[in-house]
């Protein structure tokens, strides 16, 4: 067995363990792309579809014949690591990717706990890194993070459309905020509370709960009988489902919910017991929208993954369009190794893919989003632009 064939067998084995095989046509040089995502653990509901979407994009690129840079053909192969929803495993996964000198570009991680240490490590090693987690906004623009991108809009951008839509659709006048006691929650409050107050909504109470809380009874009682008609909460489906469920059990609590993060599933499950539920779809509404590009993407996703969509599948669009932006940037700058030039080119692009993607000079995404709305048992969505 030749060395080249052995290399292909080894590559197939690595990709197969990641779950999918990205097509790699023969005859082209192969660019290795690293991915570190929480494929298991509580954050996998975000990261697993995101990694699937990225792999799907690379597969589509390869099936088109890859990219051509200065007359030379290149295709992509993906090396995937599992962060297991824990910072220490995100770091060890990142370190394994860094040990491969061929990997200079990495995608992955949508949650801040594993994301911050991994992103910091990638920055120190001059890796072109595309992440999705919230606290990445605190890193971008700082020295050493010139090659970092956050592919999801910052809270500051999302909230500017989410709050006006939420206030209008829910008709709330007085809202409480209930979030887990984490750094990301404090940044959420710093963004959302002023916007609510600017919209004329009173926010008399902000409470934080211990992140592994399962019994929300005592903390929900703080909001009981306070004449609040809305509750802004987050930051993942499991927690919010528990909050919604227990608030309906306890009584005397707001029945209108604004959900920062996750999917509409928590509200939809208890649709009969609550008045309304509004949530952020940071990419595209895959179920209730009427965008033909989205519908086509969904079909391709089902074909690639052999799975049906779920409420969290929309995270599959986290990196999808950015993969194509990166590929186009490589072709336009005429290099697959000049990471600074590739990054600069991405920042100058406006890409109309499934999402309409732009990045600012610090690498922050500036994209339109969809907002899911559940009111009177009916589900719909609206598209909201940061402008």
């Amino acid at each position, binding site marked *: 067995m030749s060395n080249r064939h052995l290399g292909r067998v080894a590559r197939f084995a690595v990709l197969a363990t990641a779950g999918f095989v990205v097509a790699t046509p023969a005859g082209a040089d192969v660019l290795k792309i690293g991915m570190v995502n929480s494929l298991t653990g509580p954050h996998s509901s975000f990261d697993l579809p995101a990694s699937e979407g990225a792999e799907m994009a690379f597969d589509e690129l390869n099936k088109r014949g890859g990219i051509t840079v200065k007359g030379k053909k290149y295709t992509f192969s993906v090396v995937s690591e599992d962060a297991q929803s824990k910072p220490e495993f995100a770091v060890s996964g990142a370190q394994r990717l860094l040990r491969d000198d061929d990997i200079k570009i990495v995608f992955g991680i949508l949650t801040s706990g594993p994301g911050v240490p991994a992103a910091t490590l990638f920055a120190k090693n001059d890796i072109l890194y595309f992440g999705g987690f919230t606290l990445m906004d605190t890193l971008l623009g700082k020295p050493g993070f010139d090659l970092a991108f956050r592919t999801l809009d910052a809270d500051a951008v999302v909230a500017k459309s989410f709050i006006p839509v939420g206030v209008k659709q829910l008709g709330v006048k007085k809202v409480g905020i209930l979030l887990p006691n984490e750094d990301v929650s404090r940044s959420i409050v710093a963004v959302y509370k002023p916007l609510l107050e600017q919209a004329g909504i009173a926010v008399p109470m902000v409470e934080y709960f211990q992140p592994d809380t*399962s019994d929300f009874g005592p903390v929900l009682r703080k909001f009981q009988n306070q004449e609040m008609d809305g509750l802004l909460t987050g930051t993942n489906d*499991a927690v919010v489902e528990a909050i919604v469920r227990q608030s309906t059990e306890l009584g005397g609590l707001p029945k209108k919910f604004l959900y920062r993060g996750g999917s509409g599933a928590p509200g939809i499950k208890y649709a009969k017991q609550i008045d309304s539920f509004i949530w952020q779809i940071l990419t595209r509404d895959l179920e209730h929208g009427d965008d033909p590009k989205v519908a086509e993407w969904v079909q391709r996703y089902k074909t690639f993954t052999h799975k049906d969509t779920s409420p969290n599948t929309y995270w599959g669009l986290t990196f999808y369009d950015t993969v194509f932006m990166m590929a186009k940037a490589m072709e336009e700058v005429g290099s697959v190794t000049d990471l600074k030039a590739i990054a600069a080119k991405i920042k100058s692009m406006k890409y109309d893919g499934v999402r309409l993607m732009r990045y600012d000079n610090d690498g922050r995404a500036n994209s339109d989003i969809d907002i899911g709305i559940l009111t009177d048992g009916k589900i719909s969505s609206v598209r909201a632009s940061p402008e």
Partner: protein
Amino acid sequence: MWIDVAQTVFDGLMVGGLYATVAVGITLVFGIMGVLNFAHGQMVMLGAYVAFFAVTAGLGFWVGLLLAMAAMGLFGLILERLIFRHTLTDHMTGLTVSLGIIMVVENLAAAVFTPDHRNFDPPLSGSVQLLGITLSAQRLLVLVLVMGLVGAFYLFLQKTSFGKAIRATGQNRTGAALVGVQITQITALVFVLGSAMAGAAGALYGSLFAITPYMASGPLMKGFILTVLGGLGSVPGAVLAGFLLGLAESFGSRYFSAAFNDGYGFILMIITLLFFPTGLFGVRGKARV
């Protein structure tokens, strides 16, 4: 104001009752066998899953509760027969083995059930009004059931011949053997009962809160706090400590910070041990069952 306090008391008693149901099993096993069984929390988790699958299969909550108790009782018997019986003379080995069981069971559960959060519909939904207090119907049911379980367990220990044999073994193993108590049967029964209580706690827990393979650590940690707080080997102590812990957490989260929820239990434990060094009902050198 008093309505708010009453609601907070109710919440505390409910969750404290769940803790007490878990702690009873831990302290009983320790009192009789001298084994600190860290795997007890896994039985709470597995009991919750048994109830979940029973309910989703259409068997209903009550069948799920009974199945959870029976399944965990059987699991406890298997563990006692295959593992803990052989560690009776070396408690450190028993403790270490129980730590290993945690790893095996938790990872198996994650692999088989996946880490996704699960919920099942409880038998009661919504809230009820009682003397002007708004109470969750299912939480009220859980409180009634844990009181019933703990009460029944206490009566079993006090009034039945098996219960007396368990208490005798806890007080003096040799003496109990001399008067004809079958020690091996009693240790097996203790494991079965403790595990069944954990299974019941799991089913009740699952009727209120999310079920995951990783949910065992919370109840287990609380269970051990209660075992120390109540006095090692003291069942009445564990029960009282359970309710006290629930009240401490409920009032702490309600009137201070919910972000410090677990800390209230440790503060309670420290203060109690300062005044009662062997726990609320602990007697130095003896197990009180």
